[in-house]
Each structure stands twice: as structure tokens, then as C-alpha cells.
């Protein structure tokens, strides 16, 4: 059974756990507040700590539709809000005779719902609280794009000149993620709740992996988590996130390894460390990484 929205933080934590996501108290409270107040939530954090994942899980556990807007440089209204189907409009114009074109209604239909292509943001406003809107890696879009988002994030409405203003009856749950490649505008942040996701504690990370990769041995997982934590302490250019830890455990599992030693680390390190400089640092001390000696 899916509930509409949780009554307490503990309930939300439990529901997320059923969906395979272990949220700590901070994230759960932030999400709970976001859902109670109908406010968008901006999640920042290191790479691979499950920022995007949380939106996906929220959608699935509450039986809502996940609408995802992946941001990139140069993204504009045509790709994010709506676009007119110009090809069909042109055909329609050609099909209409002079007489019809003089008629107002003929022109009105040209800019009616039939020719409107919905893009993620409009789709989300239309879907209202039946949707989780994930605006992923908003820092990758250029700052002009943030201005587009302001109206949607504060009022959950979109204005299309030819059609009018479309407003969500009950706003969707909006999750924005950012990797902090640049500082976001204050205007955008003011409209959102904010949560920073750090690396989980080793015990929690073991728990997360056992949930995300069912069937892997717990002893191996503990060793891998300990090794990953040693890697994070190494001052690498790209420290591994939780996603990398999961990949690593899965890799070892596929290879049928049951223990972590210098050889297995060397053979599978590509699953966690993905920068040449970092590889040199790690390879210099394989035994230390594998066993902590």
C-alpha cells in the first residue's frame, strides 16, 4: 500500500528503507519538511552519495511519476518548458484555406494543446502532486537557466503567452541536485530547502551496500568499505563515493572473490578509482589499502 505522504519523520525513513534507500535523520527530516511544506529541496553533496537516487526512490515508494530534467549548458525553454510543434503547425497552415485563416478560431487552434509539446517542467506542473520532479545537476546549466526555474519553484506555475498560465493544483515534489561546480544564485536557493549529503559512516555504508546489492557477503562488504574509507583518507583527486563502493563490491562478487588483498585490489581498482594520478597513488600502497596494514 502506498501512502499519500508520511505523518512522521520515522515513517518516511521506514518507507524509504522499504524502497531500498537508507536515509539518515538529517536527510529524512529535510525531505519530510519539503513534503509537508510543499517546498522544493536542493540537495548538494559529494559525487556518488545518492542525490539523484533519492528522487527516484521517492517516486517509486509514493507511487508518483518521476519526471527528470537533466540540466546541461545551453538548456532553454524549448527543452525544459514547452515547445510548439512547428512542423505540424506549418502543415495545418497550408491545409487551411484563405477563408479559414481569416477566422479567429482557426488561428486559436494553431496555438492550442494539440500543437503544444510538453517538456519536463510543464509536464510536472500539469501532473501536480502525482509527480516527483527531479532537476538533476542544476549547476551544469548556465545561470540564465536558473531564472527560468524561479517562477516554477516559487509558484509552481508556467506562463505560455498563447495559452495562459498553467498552475499546479497541488505542487509536485521537486528535488534539485547540484555537484557545486559553481555557486547557485541566492534567488534560486531562497526558494528551496537545503540539505548537504556527506559520506555515510562505515557502519551505515555497509548497511547501504547490503540493501543495494543483496546477496553479497557481509564480510567482504566490511572489508571493501574499510578499504574505501582508507582511499578517501588518501587525498585523491576524485575520492570514491558510495556508488563506487557498490560497484566495487559487485565487481568482486562477479569475479567470485571472497577476500580483499593486494592482488584483488590491483585487478579491480578500476571500479573505484577513475583518475590516472590517483591510480599511481593507490598502486604505490596496495597492501595498505587492502588490509589497512
Amino acid at each position, binding site marked *: 500500500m502506498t501512502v499519500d*505522504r508520511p*505523518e*512522521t*519523520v520515522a515513517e518516511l525513513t521506514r518507507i524509504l528503507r522499504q524502497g531500498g534507500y537508507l536515509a539518515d*535523520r*538529517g536527510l529524512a*527530516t*529535510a525531505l*519530510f*519538511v*519539503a*513534503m*509537508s*511544506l*510543499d*517546498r522544493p*529541496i536542493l540537495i*548538494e553533496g559529494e559525487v556518488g552519495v545518492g542525490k539523484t537516487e533519492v528522487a527516484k526512490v521517492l517516486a517509486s515508494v509514493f507511487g508518483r511519476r518521476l519526471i527528470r530534467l537533466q540540466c*546541461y*549548458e*545551453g538548456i*532553454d525553454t*524549448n527543452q525544459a518548458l514547452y515547445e*510548439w510543434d*512547428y512542423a505540424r*503547425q*506549418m502543415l495545418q*497552415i*497550408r491545409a*487551411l484555406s*484563405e477563408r479559414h*485563416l481569416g477566422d479567429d478560431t482557426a*488561428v486559436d487552434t*494553431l496555438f492550442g494543446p494539440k500543437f503544444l509539446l510538453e517538456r519536463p517542467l510543464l509536464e510536472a506542473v500539469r501532473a501536480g502532486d502525482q509527480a516527483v520532479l527531479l532537476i538533476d545537476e542544476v*549547476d551544469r546549466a*548556465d545561470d*540564465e537557466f536558473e531564472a527560468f526555474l524561479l517562477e516554477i519553484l516559487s509558484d509552481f506555475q508556467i506562463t505560455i503567452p498563447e495559452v495562459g498560465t498553467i498552475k499546479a493544483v497541488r505542487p509536485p515534489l521537486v528535488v534539485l541536485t547540484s*555537484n*557545486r*561546480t*559553481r555557486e547557485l544564485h*541566492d534567488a534560486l*536557493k*531562497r526558494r528551496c*530547502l*537545503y*540539505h*548537504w549529503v556527506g559520506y555515510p559512516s562505515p557502519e551505515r555504508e555497509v548497511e547501504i551496500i547490503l540493501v543495494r546489492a543483496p546477496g553479497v557477503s557481509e564480510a567482504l562488504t566490511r572489508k571493501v568499505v574499510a578499504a574505501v574509507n582508507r582511499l578517501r583518507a588518501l*587525498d585523491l*583527486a*576524485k575520492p570514491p563515493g558510495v556508488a563506487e563502493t557498490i560497484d566495487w563490491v559487485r565487481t568482486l562478487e562477479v569475479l567470485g572473490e571472497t577476500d580483499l588483498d593486494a592482488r584483488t585490489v590491483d585487478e579491480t581498482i578500476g571500479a573505484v578509482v577513475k583518475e590516472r*594520478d590517483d591510480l599511481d597513488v593507490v598502486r604505490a600502497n596496495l597492501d595498505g589499502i587492502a588490509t589497512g596494514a
Partner: protein
Amino acid sequence: MGSPQVPDEAPFVSVLVAFADELRGEGLAVGSGDVLSYCSAMAPLDPADLLDLYWAGRTTMVTRRDQIPVYDRAFKRFFLDEVDSLPEPLRHTIRNAAQTQSVLQVPATEPGTDDRRDQEAKLGLVASEAEVLRNKAFAACTPDELASLRRIMARMRLAPPKRRTRRTSPARDGRAPDPRRTVRETMRMHGEPSKVFWRERRLRLRPLILILDVSGSMADYSRHLLQFAYSAKRAHARVEVFCFGTRLTRITKALERRRVDDAMEQAAKTVFDWEGGTRIGASLATFVRDWGRRGVCRGGIVVICSDGLDRGDPHVLATAMERLSRLCHRVVWMNPHKGSGQSFQPSTLGMMVAAPFVDILLSGHNLRSLEELAATLPTLN
């Protein structure tokens, strides 16, 4: 249920408001809207639960990661009555900052608004002297000459090269069709096919990152370069400024003040290790790790100003420079010891290590060389 509603118990709300006030006292920008969010966030939560109190406040009133420790401190003091135990380095920092202020005695750029005519007359004089001043090393200038130099520098504009973005704008001879405008025009012509409109990818200035050495060996130059950093910041929106001596400090925020002297004073307060030792390698490594990796300098022009007298491990510097050169578009190194001569051989170890990763080496010891930088920058594509 969880309808956004402020609880009725007035005393409780006043506690939350008082806490928000406490945060403001700590320098966090907490608007009344945020306090309202906090109060309504607490409504469905349990006010007696410290964890709820903590997380609801953090998610509604903190907007940046670096504010979290400040929030934590204020929370502990306010709700847990914990006496502030400032970590030792921080105390040290405050004392240092106080000293720093007295070190940075820059002559006022704007000598007062009442005698504008007087100032203009002086400026005229400066113009005739400018040619002489241009080639005089900053270190040899008198305070008055420096003040006039800084006035000239304030008018210099740094313009980084442009790059083509993915965003398009209407253009007469663009490459991509603009269906929106074409259809609109066609409609206006009652369906008669109109001419086709075009769009073109826009050009945008690359980001400019200044990394300035403010250590003892560079102290003479750093003050003028800070001034230069300030004018660059005013001229172009995307400028990041960092200072380093023994460690790296970001001073971009401090330079956002309107008046030159305010900004400089603020920057001086931020840079604790003014005229300390130099650890270029470690500082650049910090920059690459904490800022570069996040994309601050991606596709940008990095201008490093230092004499290359590194007291750290040269290997660290080499690694940092290599990473930096891969992360950004171009690296410009300003070394005052280069002088005006064309034949400069790097003599310091740091400089020799860094040289292979530097695209252009300039001197930056007088106004002419800074003009040279301003002239070179736009051509670095």
C-alpha cells in the same frame, strides 16, 4: 496533518525567532521568510526533540555547506548552553587579522568627494607623468605615485577571451534555423511562407581566476595586484580571486564591496597569512582539490602571480601545476623578478618546476607589464 501552519504556542515561536536572531548575529543571512519556513517546518515535528529542532533549522535556514559549522556552533550555544570552545587556530586567526589591518596601510584612492576639481587637476598631472610611472617598478614608487597608479589601474579593464557557448541567440547569418520566429512571422503574413530566421551560438567571456601570492617575498607587489584584482572583478562578472602565502584563501566575496578601500580592507581581514612564508605547491594543490575539481577554473584563464620561491616540496608543486593546466584553458604566470628583459631564465626551483605548464610568463612588476597582461588576455584563445 502536515499543513503548513505556525503552531499556536507563542512562546515557542519566540524561541525559534530568537534562535534565528542568534544565527544572524553569527553572520548568516536569515530572512524572515526563512524563519517562517522554520516555524512551519516545526509544526508537524516534535519541538521537544532536539534532533527535529536541529535538522528543521538546518534545512530551512542554511543555504551553503560552509555555513553548517557556524550553524552547529550557534545551535549548541543556544539550545544546549554549551560554552563556545573556539578551536585554537581560529583564535590565532582573529589575532592575526587584527595585526594585518595595520600592515595593509594603503593610501586612500578617493581622497574625499568635496575637492573633485582638485582631484581632476591632479589626474591631469598624473597623465603627463604616467609614461614615467608606467615603467617604474612598484617597489620603487612613493606612496603618492602609487595612489595615482592605482587610479590608472582602476580604469584598466581585463577582458578574458571568449568562447562559444551552447546557448543560441537570434542572428542574421546564423547557422541554425529559428522555427519559433519563422512560424510567428508566417502567421503574421497570413500563412504566406516568410523568410527563414536563424540563430547562432552565443559568445561568452571565459572565467578569469587570479591566484595571488601575498607572502613576504611578494608583499611589495601583492597590494597593487589586489587592487588590480579588484578592478578586474568590477569589469567582469565571472572573476575568482584567491590569495596564498602558507595557505590558500578565497577573497572573491571580500572584493564585492563597492569602494576600493573597503574591499581591500575586507580582503586583508580574510587573508591571515599576509607576509608569511610561501608554500606555493601546497596552496595550488589546495586550489586544484577544493576549487578546480569543482569546475571553478574549467575553460578559464588562470593568472598566478608569484616569484616561485617555494618552501615546500617541488614535487607537490609540479603535480598541482600539471593538474591545473589540464583543468583550465590557459595558465598565465606573473613573476615580478622577470623584469622587462626578454631573456628570462627561471632561477628559482619553484619557477623551473612550474614552467612547463605555464602558457605565458609575464612580469607584472610595473604598470606597463600589467597593461601587457590586459592586452594579451583577449588573444589567448
